């Protein structure tokens, strides 16, 4: 039997589908990503050492195995296989170990029989770093078994042993060093801000400020890539916040909506969340406004929110903030500025981890001429294929990730839209690459970009 959804591979306009399928001769086929393991000097920067053997993994994992999530997920799977073809990683690779249940089996064998001695750690490492933690499997599993939670647990153990990819470690180290993934220090941020302000003046003829490190009511947390690469998104935020005359600021010490801690271990997740909380307190803000970043919003709305609340500070997503203003008529927009057909792609972590599905849709309807929905939307959305720390620019990996992102792009393309809209920093890096690889006639934008274009200021 074959899984018919995998036929989309052959439909790639790049014509590379057949060859890609040919390379998947056996059931177990995947790129090893072991060579990307972080080196000792990199590990030091995030306070880790490479230590421990198979036995230590076993012990640590079994200890975690006493927790509610793992107990449930390890003990209740009925091997029905419903989840297999729901995972974009399986769809693109045809590798059973890259399906939710196949991945879980790699550790379930240990869990069910602790006498197992021969753990293939490099196999576990390889496949557990090919799960993008998107949770699509949890939506379709009749039991609701959430493979991303198993992945987070396994990675927690692997990370503590120093078994973690180079890309994730360098990113984590940057956040400890300067507070953002790109490694922008205060000087760099200040000059980017100046540049953007000049740009905005040219565009709109108005003095639109991006306050940096000032006391304010609102602290905006953009993705660091919004400052550097996706500058239209940053301009969108700026226009909205200025049009509303809010007292707002960004901070050079917390210029990162993303949280790679989610992809490594709980310690980093908390540390990075706390950086934002500390900054919000020291700037005396009342509200923290989160920028466009899928997994960042999952960490924020599930962790940072509660830490902020302890200090009487509210957390909002920029979409919630913008929609409120639009509904109250405080923002004037001209739909004709975005005169085309747009498809909204739900970033997996908004839809399945952050409870953010309606606000972006409503904003989109207000700022563009026409919208269209894809086959799998909301909680059923496909992952971009680069979450979970898989955005790395590596020779072997790049082709893999072009296919991992194919299901999402395919269904967006099939709507006939000219634009795929995805308000997520990882998507903004991944989708243009996937679109280009597959030669699909689609363009990709963030949502606040469009708000910025349509706003009359």
């Amino acid at each position, binding site marked *: 039997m074959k899984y018919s959804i995998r036929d989309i591979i052959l439909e790639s306009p790049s014509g590379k589908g057949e060859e890609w399928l040919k390379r998947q001769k056996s059931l177990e086929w995947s790129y090893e990503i072991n060579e990307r393991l972080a080196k000792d000097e990199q590990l030091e920067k995030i306070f880790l050492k490479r230590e421990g053997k198979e036995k230590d993994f076993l012990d640590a994992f079994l200890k975690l195995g006493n927790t509610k999530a793992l107990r*449930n997920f390890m003990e209740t799977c009925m*091997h029905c296989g419903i989840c297999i073809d729901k995972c974009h990683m399986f769809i693109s690779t045809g590798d059973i170990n890259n399906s939710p249940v196949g991945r879980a089996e790699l550790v379930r064998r240990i869990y069910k029989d602790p006498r197992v001695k021969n753990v293939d750690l490099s196999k576990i490492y390889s496949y557990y770093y090919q799960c993008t933690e998107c949770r699509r499997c949890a939506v379709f599993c009749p039991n609701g078994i959430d493979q991303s939670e198993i992945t987070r647990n396994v990675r927690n153990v692997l990370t503590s042993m120093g078994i973690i990819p180079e890309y994730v470690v360098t990113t984590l180290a940057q956040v400890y060093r300067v507070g953002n993934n790109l490694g922008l220090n205060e000087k760099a941020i200040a000059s980017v801000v100046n540049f953007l302000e000049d740009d905005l003046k040219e565009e709109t003829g108005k003095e639109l400020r991006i306050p940096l490190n000032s006391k304010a009511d609102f602290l905006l947390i953009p993705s660091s890539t919004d400052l550097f690469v996706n500058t239209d998104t940053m301009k969108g935020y700026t226009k909205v916040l200025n049009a509303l005359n809010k007292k707002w600021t960004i901070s050079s010490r917390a210029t990162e909506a993303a949280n790679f801690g989610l992809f490594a271990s709980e310690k980093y997740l908390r540390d990075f969340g706390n950086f934002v909380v500390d900054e919000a307190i020291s700037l005396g803000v009342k509200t923290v406004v989160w920028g466009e970043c899928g997994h960042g919003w999952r960490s924020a709305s599930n962790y940072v929110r509660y830490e902020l609340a302890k200090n009487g500070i509210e957390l909002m997503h920029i979409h919630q903030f913008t929609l409120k203003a639009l509904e109250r008529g405080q923002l004037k927009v001209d739909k004709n500025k975005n005169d085309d057909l747009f498809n909204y792609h739900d970033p997996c972590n908004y839809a399945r981890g952050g409870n953010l599905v309606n606000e972006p849709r409503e904003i989109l309807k207000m700022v563009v001429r026409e919208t269209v929905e894809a086959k799998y939307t909301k909680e059923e959305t496909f992952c971009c294929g680069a979450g979970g720390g898989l955005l790395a620019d590596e020779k072997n990996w790049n082709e893999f990730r072009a296919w991992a992102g194919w299901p999402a792009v395919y269904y967006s393309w099939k709507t006939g839209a000219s634009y795929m809209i995805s308000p997520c920093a990882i998507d903004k890096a991944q989708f243009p690459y996937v679109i280009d690889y597959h030669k699909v006639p689609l363009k990709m934008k963030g949502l606040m970009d469009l708000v910025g274009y349509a706003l009359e200021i």
Partner: protein
Amino acid sequence: MNEISLILDAYFYIAITVFLLGSLYYIISWIFSKKGITNTYLGFPNLFTYPGQVSKWDAIKNILKRIFLFSSIKYDKSTRIISLLFHYSLWIIIFAHFDLFLEPYLVSIGIGIQTIETISFFAGNTLAIIFIFSGLYLLYRRLSNVYLRKISNIDDYLSLILLLLFGFTGLLMRLLLPSFYAYNVVGPFISSLFSFHPTDIPIAPIFITHFILACTLVIYMPLSKLLHMFSFFTNPTLYSIFHER
């Protein structure tokens, strides 16, 4: 009491005990185990997957739809229909076994014994046939899909085969034993077991086989994947919203 009866009666009580203790152990451990060292799921207080699942009622609706309509299998149509048939026929048959106790009552309120026997003959056989065929399809599905075969273990086959044999011997009982056998012989025996005054087991090989299989299944349940029937209510992705932070 003869020896066979003694052994089988004991087997019955052991089965019930193993089932109750085993299932309780799992259910309690799922509900009461800690979320994690910091009492969160690695930092998160909740794990729910459904957007808009902000009220408890939404969560309940979602869980009930999963349990009773198999709503999460919506993109695998044939599997959904056939596994719905499989599960529903099994449960109806199991509940229908209560007529073994209920028959005297039903008769006493004036429903003819002949009517009961006819209904249960036709309905029972139809359901058993549906159950057996849908079960066979599930077995075929598991064997014919290389991916599924790869992740299947002995438990997956054993559970299905035990259930199928259980259904098959049940059907044979209906067809081979004289009518009213269930009413006159099996019913009183089962009642005697539940009232803790066991009588001799009816000596009909097909019934004894069916009885042994039933007890084996009941023992096997908490040791196997059949546990999944309890897990819906304890799975943190589905019911996490009920947790206090």
